[in-house]
């Protein structure tokens, strides 16, 4: 039998990979966005696992909503990326510091 901790460990590893990805790919905006999607995926996995183990369907409902929001956020993030690219012709994040305080 597969224990819960196995699943949870897998989820943790996915999360860790995405965090590392953020650190490593700080210049590449697209990969940043994809790392965020990875993070969301790992969290979704967590929810599903706990929903299964506690026999509560609320976890899956929440995954539903996270999926929705993730999709919306990806869309808008990509739209912003497109506009940025029109202006700067580059997706190098070190050029994007116009909101510096």
């Amino acid at each position: 039998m597969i224990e819960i901790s196995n699943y949870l460990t897998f989820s943790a590893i996915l999360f860790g990979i995405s965090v590392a990805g953020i650190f490593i790919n700080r210049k590449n905006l697209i990969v940043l966005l994809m790392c965020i999607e990875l993070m969301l995926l790992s969290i979704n996995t967590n929810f599903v696992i706990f929903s299964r183990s506690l026999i509560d369907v609320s976890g899956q409902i929440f995954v539903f909503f996270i999926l929705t929001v993730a999709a919306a956020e990806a869309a808008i993030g990509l739209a912003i990326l497109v506009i940025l690219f029109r202006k700067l012709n580059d997706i190098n994040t070190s050029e994007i510091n116009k909101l510096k305080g």
Partner: protein
Amino acid sequence: MEILKIIFYTFSLISTVSALQVILSKNPVRSVLSLVLCFFSTAVLWMLCESEFLSIVLILVYVGAVMVLFLFVVMMLDIKTSYIKEGFVKYFPLGVSVAFLLVLGIVYSITYNTIISCKTFSAYPENYNNVKILGEVLFTEYLYPFEISGIILLVAMIAAISLTFRGSQKRKSQDVSAQIKVQAKDRVKLVDIKENE
């Protein structure tokens, strides 16, 4: 139950490797495609947890819509790959160490708790229908968040369109309101020219 374990380890391995591929590859298209693979294998894992609805939805919605969108954008933009890999070596140790610490912390807290670490999935009751239960709860208890999520999607759509839409570039029709708004001072400037002796 050996087969379940084999399936689990296989697909979790595929998932992990493709995730690594996402962050480490030089080619952005390759990153996107490996992310798609990661999603697929995670869907299989969800299927293992007996939440079949969500795993299919993951593939349909997430991969089918969101990742395709990513692919579109990556294809559309002309990315100078040389700048991208700048600083890769510089930040590599930091990133790995932070991520390692994070994973270590989480794993420790999972395995430390003996209740969780020994537990396995208990069986579902008879007549358990995932989709049916999901539908029942979604449309009664969580109706309000459900509607709100619809509105969120609407807002996202409007936002994305209003951000990026520039109007047709090749349109040759007249914009009457802009024509009327013109004022003389925008077009004509009186310059005093002195007579030169």
